[in-house]
């Protein structure tokens, strides 16, 4: 896979290049900031761009860079690596895109297998979300805004959490030891309870369900 990365911490940048190369990926550009990355990628697209969230242009250069990159290279996957897993950033990331996109903690992609799996899923169009973030969001629902999630059964909550981690129906079925049909039924029920009707495409409704769910945990954003 052709990969580019922007990260302002020199040590982490070096470590990531080492790991990417060990995983057999071609590292096309290594830059200390978003603006440099955009310049480097102007003429030669990559499969996935790896971005630190908190880097130049300050304060959250990764997000700004991603928006520009998504506009100029819509087929390029985006992987955000951060020292923090915050639902605030997750919502902003999902506002940039709901396909070919991922958000993981820096220290959690420290093996060739995990890093490659993350990049492959993103390049194939999935959303990959740090599991601890998705899990934390369901385990402690905010009581005052949890109504929409409170309407879900426990099993439906498991399903929407796994959806928020970017899993496919097949993967969700495997994880919960139920049939694919059962998962479809749960998802249909989640769509229904979230008020997402059939006029949107399946993948769109899926993303909207995830967003509805995440927003319900987060409170209102003005």
């Amino acid at each position, binding site marked *: 896979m052709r990969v580019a990365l922007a990260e302002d911490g020199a040590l982490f940048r070096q470590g*990531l290049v*080492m790991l990417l190369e060990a995983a057999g990926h071609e590292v096309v550009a290594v830059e200390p900031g978003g603006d440099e990355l955009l310049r480097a990628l102007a003429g030669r697209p990559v499969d996935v761009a790896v971005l630190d969230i908190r880097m130049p242009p300050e304060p959250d250069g990764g997000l700004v860079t991603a928006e520009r990159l998504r506009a100029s290279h819509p087929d390029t996957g985006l992987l955000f690596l951060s020292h923090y897993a915050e639902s605030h950033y997750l919502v902003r990331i999902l506002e940039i895109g709901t396909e070919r996109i991922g958000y993981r903690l*820096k220290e959690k992609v420290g093996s060739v297998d995990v890093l490659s799996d993350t990049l492959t899923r993103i390049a194939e169009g999935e959303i990959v979300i740090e599991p601890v973030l998705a899990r934390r969001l369901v385990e*402690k629902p905010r009581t005052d805004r949890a109504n929409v999630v409170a309407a879900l059964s426990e099993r439906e909550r498991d399903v929407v959490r796994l959806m928020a981690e970017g899993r496919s129906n097949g993967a969700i079925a495997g994880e919960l030891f139920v049939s694919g049909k059962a998962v479809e039924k749960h998802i249909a029920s989640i769509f229904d309870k979230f008020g997402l009707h059939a006029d949107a495409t399946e993948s769109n409704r899926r993303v909207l369900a995830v967003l509805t769910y995440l927003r319900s945990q987060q*409170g209102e*954003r003005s």
Partner: protein
Amino acid sequence: MTTADGPTRRRDVRREHWTRRRQLERRLHDGAAVRISSLALRLGVLDAPREQIEALQDEVAAALDELRAVAAGIYPPLLHEAGLGPALAERARATGVDVALDVADDRCGPAAEGAAYFALVEVLAAARGPLAVTVRRDGATLVVAVAGADPGLAAVLADEAGPLGGDVAVTAAEIVGRFPCG
């Protein structure tokens, strides 16, 4: 005049205190955190048994968790980057407190935001029932209103607002703290 210099000096010292806290958090992030998280990646390319590598990476992740907890107590990065609204929402979600937040997007500088945030963290921690927190910018002042809290908690807001030249008022319905921006 010492009587005029006193509060002004105290305010400057307090502002400096918040700026320094924000800088300390930044140093933790740019220094130790980068160094330690890059270790996780370097371990990943070592030629050693997988279980050994994973055990070491778990240690690295635990160290980073502790570092994040310390940073959050010094000056939460989300407060600096995104403001009081997102920082309070994240805090409320993490602690599971029942609070309705209505926070304007306006920014007000590290001192007022830091002081208001940490005062509200204490108020949230002491909550016995549902709270409503409203934050608005009124000219050069950040106005924080808390409904549903024990009126005794006004002292917590006063401790943070006072040194910055702000004040606190208590009515039957709410506690209102005023934090000068800058």
